């Protein structure tokens, strides 16, 4: 039963990522096309633009939510691929815990920086 719910969460996070990552890559990459629709995106990778977004709580919240769902989706997908090799139960437990530990470290490490920039 446990893996069934993990799989269902994979579908739910997939849909969430389609929305959140859609926003992210359209703003980061489609500046010429957004300009055509008169949405002004001036060089989203510049320091000023980045700090402008990093100082707004809504962007920080959006990015941390995106980080959480992306890490779940990516690491659960990687776990599924590894477990398709049908390892022993012991190896399966090791893989699961290594992936959980990696996910927690990546989440804390990557959400610390935007939160620190937001507070400072």
């Amino acid at each position, binding site marked *: 039963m446990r893996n069934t719910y993990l799989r269902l969460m994979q*579908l739910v996070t*997939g*849909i969430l*990522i*389609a929305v959140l*990552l*859609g926003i992210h*890559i359209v703003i980061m*990459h*489609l*500046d*010429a*096309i957004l300009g055509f629709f008169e949405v002004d995106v001036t060089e989203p*990778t*510049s*320091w000023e633009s*980045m700090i402008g977004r990093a100082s707004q709580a809504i962007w920080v919240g959006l990015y941390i939510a995106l*980080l959480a769902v*992306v890490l779940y989706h*990516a690491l659960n*997908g*990687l776990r599924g*691929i590894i477990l*398709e*090799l*049908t390892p022993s139960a012991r190896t399966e437990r090791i893989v699961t815990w290594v992936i959980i530990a990696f996910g927690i470290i*990546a989440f804390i*490490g*990557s959400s*610390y*920086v935007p939160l*620190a*920039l937001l507070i400072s």
Partner: protein
Amino acid sequence: MKQMQPRQNYMGPGGWVWAGKYKLERYLYLLHRITGLGILLFLILHLCMTTIFRIQGQDVWEATMALLHNPWFKIGEYLVCAALIYHALNGLRLILQELGFALGRPTPPVYPYKDALRKKRPWTIAMIAVIAILALVFFYDFIVGGW
């Protein structure tokens, strides 16, 4: 060609690449897996880049961005975008079909009937068309938007 032996159909990772004469969707699945692993690799690099270099202040950030505006990195970025478009749309197609949406009413298997793959095929074609259009839109923006 690799022959399947009876009672011995576990092919390991080799079966991910080639498992017999399968239709288009089987190879879309392989591409889904490859793009997923590629995006995971990019995600790790991206998280390192946006944390380690960002916390060191403006100068380090701008030096990194100058490096990443190199044409080779831009080509890599475009490939990541294309992989994301593919993975997203193929994933949405898989979700729709796994949950049984938009497949029409079930019909009794009376000859000549349409098998499940044929019922799903129009969605696959539509998905590939949308992916091609979006990939071209991104290509346009990567060229017109400059390197």
